């Protein structure tokens, strides 16, 4: 049975469709525009007006950045921190979550308390900075991995999931004399792919996108990840833009040089940016359902 369509209903449907279309345009345009510029001839980009497709197609910008040794090493650092960070983070987060999901765990109340407090109160940036220094983690690759081993929000999601797995599986294994270690790694973990995939992706994206720890604790250029390289290129391009702005009132020649220089930097920036986000954007359609699943699990609890 369909309810009658009032004037308000028609308005609502129109409003909904219109908002969605506006949202889609606003969201996608900046991405497509950057992609187009990265694939467009740098001098042609200077003329302005490149929208969502390259006008004079070229791969020059990408060739330029891949000729740069710095980009390779940064990319490698990003991949390494993402892989190592995800595996180790998943390990420590899931073991803790599994333990805390057991009512029989001695000291469970204290452990849980210990985990909840830092979610709402933290020592802050300065004390953390000195802790990292005292531990000798500055200028080390491990500063990307070790401080991020346990994420408490992720842990709570996993704990909720484990608490809802059927007890029968575990009980029968206990009767057969299996240890909790064995139960976790051989029985529970293999049947928990929905949550492990979700949390792995959360951790992975976190590592891929991190820039602050590199800015704060690492000076060694060889250890800088992709986000840091992108940041320095962006700042150079802002610099170039400022040069262009001040030169605009001066003679035409100076202004032209500045503009052309600006666009070269701009093309390079766009290409670097596309290279940085490409793995995420490519995987995104396939993995997004896992991200959403995580939030769904979290909201059951709430």
């Amino acid at each position, binding site marked *: *049975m369909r*309810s009658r369509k*009032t004037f*308000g209903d028609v308005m609502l*449907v129109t409003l909904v469709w219109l908002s*969605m279309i506006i*949202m*889609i345009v606003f*969201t996608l*345009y*900046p*991405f497509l525009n950057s992609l187009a510029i990265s694939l467009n001839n740098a001098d042609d980009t200077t003329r302005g*007006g490149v*929208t969502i497709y390259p006008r004079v197609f070229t791969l020059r910008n990408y060739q330029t950045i891949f000729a740069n040794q710095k980009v390779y090493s940064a990319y490698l650092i990003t991949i390494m921190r993402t892989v190592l960070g995800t595996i180790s983070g998943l390990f*420590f*987060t899931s*073991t*803790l979550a599994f333990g805390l999901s057991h009512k029989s*765990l*001695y*000291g469970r109340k204290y*452990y849980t308390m*210990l*985990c909840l407090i*830092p979610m*709402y*109160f*933290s*020592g*802050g*940036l*300065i*004390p*953390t*900075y*000195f*802790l990292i220094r005292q531990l000798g983690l500055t200028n080390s690759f491990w500063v990307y991995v070790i401080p991020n*081993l*346990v994420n408490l929000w992720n*842990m709570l999601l996993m704990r909720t999931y484990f608490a809802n797995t059927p007890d029968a599986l575990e009980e029968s294994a206990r009767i057969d004399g299996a240890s*909790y*270690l064995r139960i976790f790694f051989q029985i529970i973990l293999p049947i928990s792919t929905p949550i492990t995939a979700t949390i792995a992706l959360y951790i992975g994206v976190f590592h*891929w*996108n*991190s*820039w602050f720890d590199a*800015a704060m604790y690492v000076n060694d250029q060889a250890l800088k990840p992709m*986000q840091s390289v*992108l940041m320095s290129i*962006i*700042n150079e391009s*802002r610099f170039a833009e400022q040069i262009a702005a001040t030169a605009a009132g001066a003679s035409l020649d100076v202004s032209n040089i500045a503009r052309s220089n600006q666009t070269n930097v701009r093309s390079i920036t766009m290409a670097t940016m596309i290279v*940085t*986000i490409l793995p*995420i*954007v490519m995987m995104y359609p396939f993995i997004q359902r896992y991200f*959403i699943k995580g*939030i769904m699990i979290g*909201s059951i609890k*709430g």
Partner: protein
Amino acid sequence: MGMLEKRRTAAVHRAPFWQRLLHQWDLQILVIPSILFILLFAYVPMYGIVMAFQEFRLGDFPGASQWVGLKQFAALMKDPNFGRVLRNTVVISLLKLAINFPIPIIFALFVNELRHERFKRISQTISYLPHFISWVVAARLMFDFFSSDGGAVNQVLVGLGLLDAPIPFFNRGEYYWALAVFTDVWKEMGWNSIIFIAAIASVDIQMYEAAEIDGASRVQKLWYITLAAIRPTIILLLIFTVGGLLNANFDQSMMLTNQMGNKLLQEYADIIDTYVYRVGISQARFSYAAAAGVFKAVINFALLMGANMLADRLGESALF
């Protein structure tokens, strides 16, 4: 459970704590390494808060410097920079609370109203996308989007005759708060809506059917059923948002201002977190910056507790 097992368990319950741990070593060993990491990386910095009540000098062992009482906090209150920083933090957070908090709810309600399944799925997928890129990338995309030199926003506004000349948005401090709000909506609206979409999906379909029989319109169903059903979720997230009022997004402020390199924006973009970073790390005034950090953490915590208590008093779903 056999007699023997029962007696053993009973004995263990009376045993000292460490013996109980030993008895359960295979479960404890899964928990203890992670707990040690938490103690180290979350609790040791909490102890480090004592720095805010001391005068730390480089070379001092953290926490072993000379005590100065509330000197740092007194200086903080008199610092005109901190007043400005506090203003920016509160204004940006309140604007986000008023605008960026309800928008994902409205978006979730809209998504729920889409009957075209394919378009619904595509819209959702696209809306989550910007959440997965860093603020480093998002800021660069926004610089171009709002650029006065061929940026899409300016071109459209000028084309429609709404502007006479393009505005260099990112070179004008007075536009920063609006940019902070817009870019945050752009990046997080879709993602923040998921939890509401999940809550809506769990509404009993029979409620809608009953309402239809009573002749309710779509607008009425949206208002009286859907919105009412997600009310507990809204309250819960509201508590979290209020509890993070003094955060105002460090990454966003840093990236939209080229790490505070854009002095034209700093006047409006400098928030507590960026101030702690600038003063503490760049200017090496460690104790002073730590005090600013403590100020933020304490007020945030008090706000969280206050919001939670208020929700509880009003008979709403509270956090704890």
